[in-house]
């Protein structure tokens, strides 16, 4: 009899991960005289040559401003731009391309929401619910909105594993709650939040839900229709795509009702000094010359990821996470921060009373790139009462050798710093 465990292992084993790794030119470089071990994937992912080549191809063959040019270059650019929107739509299983808005990143997308949706629908006394786990980009825009509107930001607490406390979440829902905005996956600690349940509870009370998918989109299959979220946001640079591009997904009915955010070219139908008529979706929210390279090549990143298969990627990253967790746990004085039952490939830890900055500095000298500090989650660090953590975050292109190198470097750091 074949167990589920065996099936999953064989799934990931069907991919030639060694070959996949070779797609990433940067992984061949040396840092401080040692081959680079890149474990800062939650901050930004590396790019396969397919993506880099696509950028070169774009600028060498059909770079031109999109959407209004009659000439061939502009037509080809527009075609590729809209084809990429279609790829994004399929990637997250949106029902229409009109629901896919190109933004400059997750932060840009959340600000669009806060300014456009927020200023129309949030009134004095309303409440917006976020969690203790959120990234600053899913805190500050709502803080600013609440301040302007005299609304209140409420915080769903977490337990010491880094999981949302479900009872407390339910208690915080009220007539005043207008929006819930939570991370699909926390970047600092890695827990996967029960977004589907959250959305169900919210919708029963006519509350809208935005899911910050910055850490989820690169690592697992996203299905916005199945999830039934009202808004979903993520960044290209964290999923093998270029910097400066991201996505706001929104249900058409909400996006239709929302006023435009930025004004300018592209987002208008007609302009006169007396009356300006805004364009249809998705263009209404895409003012100015878009990041054409970024939008088009995000499509190539998606092709790359789906070519490997998001399920394969998930499995592989879990293998690496489990191995690294086991190895790290075998060291003395290790304290893992964030031990949720369901967790993505993020490993946040402290060792004894070694400061994360010290650890990170020594690891870097050993060629191992990890992130240290608060990970843009100061309220979360404050909750744990720690100055920060050391965070190793894995991507499918990492391998067992990277983990060996990490462990070796941590050992060396412990020796030097204790």
């Amino acid at each position, binding site marked *: 009899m074949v167990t589920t465990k065996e099936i999953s292992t064989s799934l990931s084993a069907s991919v030639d991960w060694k070959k996949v790794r070779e797609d990433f030119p940067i992984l061949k470089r040396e840092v401080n005289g040692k081959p680079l071990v890149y474990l800062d994937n939650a901050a930004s992912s590396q790019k396969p040559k397919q993506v880099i080549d696509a950028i070169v191809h774009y600028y060498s063959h059909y770079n031109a401003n*999109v*959407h*209004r040019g*009659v000439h061939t270059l*502009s037509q080809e650019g*527009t*075609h590729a731009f*809209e084809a990429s929107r279609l790829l994004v739509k399929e990637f997250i299983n949106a029902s229409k391309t009109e629901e896919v808005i190109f933004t400059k990143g997750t932060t840009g997308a959340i600000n669009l929401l806060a300014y456009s949706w927020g200023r129309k629908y949030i009134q004095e006394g309303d409440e917006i619910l976020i969690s203790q786990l959120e990234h600053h980009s899913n805190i500050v825009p709502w803080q600013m909105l609440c301040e302007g509107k005299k609304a209140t930001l409420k915080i769903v607490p977490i337990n010491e594993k880094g999981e949302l406390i479900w009872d407390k979440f339910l208690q915080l829902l009220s007539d005043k709650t207008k929006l819930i905005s939570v991370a699909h996956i926390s970047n600092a600690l890695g827990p996967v939040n029960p977004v589907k349940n959250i959305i169900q509870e919210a919708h029963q009370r006519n509350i809208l839900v935005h899911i910050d998918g910055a850490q989820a989109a690169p690592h697992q299959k996203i299905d916005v229709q199945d999830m039934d979220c009202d808004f979903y946001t993520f960044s290209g640079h964290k999923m093998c795509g270029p910097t400066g591009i991201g996505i706001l997904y929104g249900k058409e009915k909400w996006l239709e009702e929302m006023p435009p955010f930025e004004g300018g070219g592209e987002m208008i*139908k007609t302009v006169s000094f007396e009356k300006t008529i805004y364009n249809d979706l998705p263009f209404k929210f895409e003012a100015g010359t878009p990041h054409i390279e970024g939008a088009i090549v995000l499509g190539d990143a998606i092709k790359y990821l789906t070519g490997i298969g998001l399920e394969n990627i998930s499995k592989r990253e879990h293998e690496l996470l489990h191995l690294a967790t086991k190895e790290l746990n075998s060291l003395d004085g290790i304290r893992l921060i964030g031990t949720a039952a369901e967790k993505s490939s993020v490993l946040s830890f402290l060792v004894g009373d070694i400061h994360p900055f010290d650890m990170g500095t020594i690891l870097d000298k050993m060629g191992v790139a990890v992130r240290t500090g608060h990970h843009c989650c100061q309220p979360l660090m404050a909750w744990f009462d720690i100055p920060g953590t050391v965070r190793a975050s894995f991507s499918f292109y990492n391998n067992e050798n990277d983990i060996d190198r990490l462990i070796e470097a941590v050992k060396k750091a412990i020796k030097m710093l204790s």
Partner: protein
Amino acid sequence: MASMVEIEKELEEDFALFDDWEGKYDYLIGLGKDLPLIDDKYKTDEYIVRGCQSRVWLHAANNGDFVFYSADSDAIITKGLVALLVKVLNGQKAEEIAHADLSFIDRIGLKEHLSPNRSNGLVSMIKQMKLYALALTKH
């Protein structure tokens, strides 16, 4: 009345006679001249097709189940394009128009006008013609 497919076939053959873009475009411009012109009273903003760089006015009427279009444009290539559509769709059943495939435009070598680019708007014209047809079926 010939079927849509028959007319498309015919157009494809006509266009195939030209092996360069010049001939094709001359022919297309010629088609524009034969377009059933829209009544001046419909040359208003209400009948404008949005999403074209040139202005296109389009009107539809039905005779029983069958739909008849008239149109005009201030650009002569655009006029040729809309004439092409009118040639195929005129006198067809509303329902069939609503589901028309129209990929023959690609085959006759005018693919550039089918891009999602908002500048040319053949796509917008097709959409508008189908909408009219749908509206007329509901009467």
